[in-house]
């Protein structure tokens, strides 16, 4: 990760000068997190895909305003998140997908005993249900921080919040989750 910012800044400078292949590299590097961010907000795969795609196009056109040396990822995610929010709003009463747990263990996970697996999957389902029951504003902060692995600063920029708001929403959410799920 240490050498990524340098490479990325170089790519951004090239993209600013109209180098489409440099921008393609940026899209490929960030499309996964952009799509997942959009999905967490829009809760619909095709809305999320459109939001991420539009976000990348808008970000390209706004590159001239991108401050040199600033972190690119949260700047991009903020644009994508706005697109996703707009879509969610226009989706109106349409039901939103609930988050689901993946069925199989992720690669690299230790293989648990069947008993532990059963317990832990119950526990996981309980935890996810508790997250889904949070208020939207807290759920989004928790999702960005823990499901997307964004830092507090990145979460703040992505969601257009102050850092202090991210911190307070995170601690409120964690306190509520501790009450909801058995220790």
């Amino acid at each position, binding site marked *: 990760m240490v050498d990524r910012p340098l490479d990325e*800044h*170089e790519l951004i*400078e090239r993209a*600013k*000068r*109209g*180098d*489409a292949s440099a*921008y*393609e590299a940026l*899209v*490929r590097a960030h*499309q*996964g997190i*952009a*799509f*997942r961010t959009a*999905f967490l907000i829009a809760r619909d*795969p095709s809305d*999320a*895909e459109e939001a*991420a*795609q539009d976000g*990348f*196009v808008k970000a*390209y*056109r706004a590159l*001239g305003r991108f401050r*040199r*040396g600033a972190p690119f990822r949260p700047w991009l995610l903020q644009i994508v998140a706005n697109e996703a929010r707009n879509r969610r709003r226009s989706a109106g009463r349409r039901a939103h997908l609930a*988050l*689901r*747990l*993946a*069925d199989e*263990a*992720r690669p690299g996970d230790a293989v648990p005993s069947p008993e532990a697996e059963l317990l832990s999957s119950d*526990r*996981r389902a309980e*935890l*996810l249900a508790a*997250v889904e029951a949070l208020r939207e504003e807290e759920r989004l902060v*928790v999702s960005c921080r*823990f*499901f997307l*692995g964004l830092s507090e600063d990145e979460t703040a920029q992505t969601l257009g919040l102050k850092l202090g708001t991210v911190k307070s929403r995170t601690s409120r959410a*964690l306190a509520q*989750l*501790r009450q909801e*799920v058995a220790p």
Partner: protein
Amino acid sequence: MNLEHELRALPIAFPDEPDLAPRVLARLERPARRWWLVPALVALAVAGALFAIPQTRAAILDLFRIGGVEVRRVETQPRAPVRPPLLGRGVSLATAQSTVDFPLLVPRDPFTAYVDGKMVNLRWKRYVLSQWHGEQLPFAQKQVGPGSQTAGVEVRGVPGFWITGARHEIIYRDPATDQIVAKSRRLAGNVLIWEDGDVTYRLEGARTVADARAVARNLKAR
């Protein structure tokens, strides 16, 4: 495992991630300048050369050359989008120094170094100092519109020019490829230009000539 770790470990089932790159790229406005800007700039340079022949000289109110920069006063302001200067690749001072064959002038304040071809750009506070071997960029042009004024001033004991007023445009020829390239295109506000030996220095960002000269005076050679 504490709660935060548990949350991080939740295997959320996200839908399969689409490959957005081809569709995004298809929607980008083609970087048109890559094919039209170079000929357009070459045409501009040719027009500049035409101005220099006697029949058209009347069109030029003023023309002088200093180091690698040619200052032309033309009757219409060049049209170009106002955008921050493209400074090149961010590098260490040592790397910047290694790309030129003369000792760089550096400010006493902390700065960031950039390299753009054979040109070194240092940025600090609101200033950008560009320095290059004048011979290496013999076709650099500065076009100054009617709203601009140029004044001869003394800078660090050598003659220089202070250019103020309307924004003006500089076009550089890239010495490596001998082509006029888009990345070298910039607009600047007030600029102080001077030449020392065959090195040209260009300082932008100063608000007054006194400020510019003071900043120039305080530069030190590495």
